[in-house]
């Protein structure tokens, strides 16, 4: 059986004045129907570019290669027109900044109705009813009045909920949410994540949740991909990756996280250095300069994703050394 979404060996190059930047270097993953997949990584790890490439939303200068198949049919290389019939209808996207994704000169009601009518041949009244229903699902009170509001009359959390309503307007099969709560306060983040869960429940859509917040992933994803310097360095179920990480970067990331459930004043275990520049990647494993386990082989050869468990893989030559290891022992 084919998966809902299959990304295979995806590579994205951006030619720049300083040279070619390879933002994504061979990313492969699959998404099953109804599943929630988290993608985590720091700034510049390529997590957003990967999903923009799937929908053909990258600037023209970008060179994309590899394969992206939705229900078995190839999306890469299609014309913008052809992709338009997928966008919103089969694959919907939620961006970080709701202000940038909403049009400031139309009421939010008009914008939701527009989204409904884009892929459906229904009357205006039916579209309006659907819009009200959508606003209700994402938890916007007094939906009928709110329909007449312009984006600037709403708070950030409200706007993001409107964006979620637009994303689910056509019952998509996949919702890609790119840092949907990063710009929001935590109590608002909780509201928006609840709206996102409600949207998934109503549409049964699969979710690709891109974020740098491991806490959000822990609560909302089934499986997890960790990205570093344009590649997947670990993937598996959230339980496996959180409790038994097998790539030093993942272990380091978990160890360096201030946690609300930790003891007070517990010392954190930082990862030394900073992520590499994509213009000047180190040879071999890109995490090598920051890795306490690095050996000569790490400079010679970039590790592939080794299978380390059922559906769990890690890109490290020494993934066996990480069995039952604590971040504190490895990184200090």
């Amino acid at each position, binding site marked *: 059986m084919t998966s809902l979404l299959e990304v295979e060996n995806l590579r994205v190059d951006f030619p720049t004045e300083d040279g070619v930047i390879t933002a994504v270097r061979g990313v492969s993953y699959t998404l099953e129907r109804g599943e929630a997949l988290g993608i985590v990584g720091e700034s510049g790890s390529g997590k957003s570019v990967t999903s923009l490439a799937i929908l053909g939303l990258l600037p023209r200068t970008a060179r994309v290669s590899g394969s992206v198949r939705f229900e078995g049919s190839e999306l890469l290389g299609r014309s913008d027109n052809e992709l338009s019939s997928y966008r919103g209808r089969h694959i919907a996207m939620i961006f970080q900044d709701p202000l940038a994704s909403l049009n400031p000169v139309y009421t939010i009601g008009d914008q939701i109705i527009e989204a409904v009518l884009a892929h459906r041949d229904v009357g205006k009244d039916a579209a309006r009813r659907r819009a009200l229903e959508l606003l209700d699902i994402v938890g916007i009170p007094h939906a009928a009045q709110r329909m007449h509001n312009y984006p600037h009359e709403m*708070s950030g959390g409200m706007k993001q909920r409107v964006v979620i309503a637009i994303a689910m307007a056509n019952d998509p099969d996949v919702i890609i949410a790119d840092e949907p709560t990063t710009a929001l306060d935590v109590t608002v983040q*909780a509201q928006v994540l609840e709206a996102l869960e409600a949207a998934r429940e109503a549409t049964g859509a699969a979710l690709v949740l891109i974020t740098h917040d491991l806490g959000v992933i*822990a609560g909302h994803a089934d499986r997890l991909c960790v990205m570093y310097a344009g590649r997947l360095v670990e993937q598996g179920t959230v339980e496996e990756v959180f409790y038994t990480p097998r790539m030093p970067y993942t272990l380091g990331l978990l160890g360096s996280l201030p*946690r609300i459930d930790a003891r007070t*004043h517990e010392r*954190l275990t930082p*990862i030394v250095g*900073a992520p590499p520049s994509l213009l000047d990647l180190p040879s071999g494993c890109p995490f090598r300069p920051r890795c306490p386990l690095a050996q000569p082989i790490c400079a010679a050869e970039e590790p592939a994703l080794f299978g380390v468990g059922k559906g769990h893989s890690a890109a490290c030559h020494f993934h066996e050394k990480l069995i039952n290891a604590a971040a504190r022992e490895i990184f200090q």
Partner: protein
Amino acid sequence: MTTVLEVRGLVKHFPVRSRGVIKRRVGDVHAVCGVSFDLAEQETLGLVGESGCGKTTTARLLLNLIPATAGSVHYGGRDLLKLSRSQMRPLRRDLQIVFQDPFASLDPRMTVAELIAEPLRIHSLFETKKVRELMRQVGLNPEHANRFPHEFSGGQRQRIGIARALALRPKVLLLDEPVSALDVSIRAGVINLLADLQESLGLSYIFVSHDLSVIRHVADRVAVMYLGKIVELAPTDALFNRAAHPYTQALISAIPVPDPHKERERRRIILAGDVPSPVDPPSGCRFRTRCPKFATLTAQEKQRCVNDVPALQDRGQGHPSACHYAEAVRML
């Protein structure tokens, strides 16, 4: 423990002016409304709250960077808010600030050495040796003294900001969201650095942050702010084990924990609606419009929340909170 900073009844109103030629004053933004606290020697006081709660304004008032509407800040037996700019200048050596955005707070045309030397020159204390020493102290390589800020990563730039603040050997350091702009793997290093510096230099910190998980790692005591007021003030452990104010409880419950099992079992308190406008804050308790507890009260009990402003006092939870119906809840 000796008190370093004594803050009493701090108030800041920003005027809202009408449009047009004659800019009439049409109202006030009540940014900070009667904030009082003490800061002890070598203590870290966390100031936590969401956007618009007045935490950054409070921090700037403490340093007399903006004029206060009312209140006092006593340092070394003097009220800082009554001092002129020239009287304030020698005291600025003792009270320094580190800003949130290390990309905006450093002059891009100055080298690191010049940046760190700047405060020393202003106070006629410059020695080349001191700059090198400061760089070493914050974990930067003194050989990089002639580089420009853009040649450094975010974490290193924040270290430059910290070195500048430390240059004059201050007693109190105001940290305004010092790690919010940094990637996770880099954040831990800066948090550890701040802890080490506090211990070796005997500094007092006021740590402003929206992130309670960072606060848990650094703070001895925490003041939670909502709409310009402190709603709860407690030693860090007490805050998490006996949160008394409904807002604190909601805030703690909204913070995701990077642990799939724990995260999925947690009870979330989802707040209704948005933060009211600080131009026209609600009467009585400012949190009542969103308070989950308020919703469960009888009409008679509600009257008290509508009419009486709850004072910040101990209501049997062992630490002060500003809720008429405070009740301690263990949040973790």
